């Protein structure tokens, strides 16, 4: 900046540390989503402690969806690293793979529901089953929102708008996707341990 100006400043107040407001906002959004699921899983614990609780096996498909969501997180991370190295084609491909895996995950969840229905576990009935529909359904809705986000990122990637010097969108999408993956793993472990 202007050197002459600097000489007049006898006190140099520090610029407060700050990060990109959009990225920061994403973290806050994640915090509120986390609170939503924390409260529902707490409700699950409280309700379970009161007895009259129906026991049944979780659909095995949910285990496969864990694998799919981990794979999708890996491809998303590879895409992120590719973007940092300005490998434009790779970014496109990895984001596309993540999107497809996202759809596969949703399909698996849907099949998991069908599995539960064939075992006569319905949304309406003992809360032990209703909770699983609500938790997976709500998580699925968030995955859908993330898929929309992935498609937006894919569009930017196709227009070569994502590069090492323009990472905000890619970074935010990666954060959100990892978060939803972790959230599913948390829900899966939670539901497996607290049957």
């Amino acid at each position, binding site marked *: 900046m202007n050197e002459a100006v600097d000489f007049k400043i006898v006190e140099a107040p520090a610029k407060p540390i700050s990060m990109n407001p959009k990225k920061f*906002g994403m973290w806050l959004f994640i915090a509120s989503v986390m609170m939503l699921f924390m409260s529902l899983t707490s409700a699950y614990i409280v309700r379970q402690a009161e007895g009259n609780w129906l026991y049944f096996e979780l659909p095995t498909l949910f285990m496969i969806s864990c694998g799919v969501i981990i794979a999708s997180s890996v491809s998303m991370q590879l895409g992120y690293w590719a973007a940092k190295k300005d490998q434009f084609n790779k970014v496109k491909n990895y984001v596309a793979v993540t999107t497809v895996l996202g759809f596969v995950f949703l399909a698996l969840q849907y099949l998991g529901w069908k599995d539960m229905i064939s075992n006569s576990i319905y949304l309406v009935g003992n809360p032990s089953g209703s909770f699983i529909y609500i938790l997976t359904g709500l998580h699925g809705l968030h995955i859908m929102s993330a898929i929309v986000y992935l498609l937006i990122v894919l569009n930017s990637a196709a227009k070569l708008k994502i590069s090492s010097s323009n990472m905000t969108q890619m970074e935010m999408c990666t954060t959100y996707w990892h978060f939803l993956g972790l959230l599913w793993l948390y829900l899966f472990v939670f539901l497996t341990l607290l049957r």
Partner: protein
Amino acid sequence: MATLDVHHHIDTHDHDDHGHEHHHGNFWTTYIFSEDHKVIAKQFLLTGMAWALIGGVLSVLFRLQLGFPEANLSWLKPILGGWLTAEGKIDPEFYLALVTMHGTIMVFFVLTAGLSGTFSNFLIPLQIGARDMASGFMNMLSYWFFFLSSVIMFISLFISTGPAAGGWVIYPPLSALPQAIPGSGLGMTLWLVSMALFIVSSLLGSINYITTVINMRTVGMSFAKLPLTIWAFFLTAVIGILSFPVLFAAALLLIFDRSFGTSFYLSDIYIGGEALPNQGGSPILFQHLFWFLGHPEVYIVLLPALGITSEIIATNSRKPIFGYKAMVGSMLGIAILSFVVWAHHMFVTGMNPFLGSVFTLLTLIIAVPSAVKIFNYVTTLWKGNIRFTPAMLFSIGLVSFFLTGGITGLFLGNSAVDIQLHDTYFVVAHFHLVMGSASFFGMMAGVYHWFPKMFGRMMDEKLGYLHFWLTFIGVYLVFFPMHYIGIAGFPRRYYSWTAFETFSGFADLNMLVSIAAIITLAAQFVFLFNFIYHIFRGKLAPANPWNSTTLEWTTPRLPGHGNWPGEIPTVYRWPYDYSKPGSKEDFIPQHIPYSETPESNLPHENDQIKLDLGGAGVGGHKH
């Protein structure tokens, strides 16, 4: 590679400049779908005021029933229509709806959206030195979600089965079963839809407030130099982000119970001798979820008012706020404790007595930071050069209500005492003073204090005094007798007392309360006149009418979109340099460097200048 669209990192200085490029839109973009935080704040304020009026009128309607149970109200036929019985009395079902809607409107629409929405939006960018909120678009969205939610709640007042009537806490099974009361039909559905939208609005707002406070502060505005208003808004937003999703979860499960037949909250219910199919639910579960939001919500309502009060009391005492760090610490303490006391609303639900004493202990600990705050307000006033502006009077009124209402909290927080007082008028008196009236006074203080910045004109002081004294005395006349009524065992939400011989003794006291309520509501019209008339006809405001130190008073009389026409001021000192010994004026604004005030600098402040002079290159790496 040629088509590569490279964006360079946007340096904050580029950011500063673009603020004054885009304004002068048309009517729609300037006043309706505006992204300017000041316009959005005014939108929140006006909507909140409209709701406050509706909520106030509803309360007077049910006070008429309680104070004058024998009166013939058929003169209200044009307004209430079918909600009056043949004898000209308020329909008992509608009475419940009135109470419910009064609570919902006041807690959420007036004291959450109207208070936080107005002042967080208005003051955060102005006081931290930012051009606007982090995301103007999200901010606009936040208002319009609130507006949509308001419209739905408003419509629910006029449907034939009436609005929600299960109390503002909407406990199931009452709220879950349409067969229970008429209000649990369509009215309750609209309530839930409206509140879901409200939660979205509140979260969008909170995310914006926190992001802005942390990331958009001007040069020099460290956390230790933030005005206490900003600290309060910041902590309020944090509480909102952590607690509103929980209300959303509670409401979501209730929606599923109501509309899809699940049994989260319902079990073993017989209606007309017939069992409902719902099995295995727990109504207590709802109370846990609801109060996990519900209690922090109390502080979402109160903290902004406390922040506003700190600012106004310091400014009008012409003294630095006493114990700045203690103020921040106590707000932080209140914010954290607010999450671990929710079960004190549930002492009589059959809770384990040991758990009850844990929650009693945690609840009583809140008295400590609250007392610190009151102590600091009083010590700030102590030997101050006090100017009794209307804003100052309302702030002192807040301190008074916070004290008298807070003391009864010590009684109610005890699980043993609460068994006697639970759900009586004692509770009503307690929370109306400590949370309702205190927050309302904080909001009023804020309006009087920042009106010149909002509209560029001054309000009339004499009308302000009249408004204050009528409201202040009115509020005490309404809520003080309620303590006695409550100790005598009168339960809340009862339609009529005349049926019980035991309770006939307090008819005169109830009448007094009702008359005081009517006068208090009438006093608000003095304010409304003062407010609306002086938006257009008020005396033009000087740039800094209260000789205040914070940054918003360095803007022009009517700041445009972008707030400062030139560069954003840099901050050198904390916001409470009032009556500093040696200083020519009795206030030194935050943007005045210490090097310009050698006469009033303290030794450590002088050292700071010297230190910076020594390293001439220091200025170089501040960019």
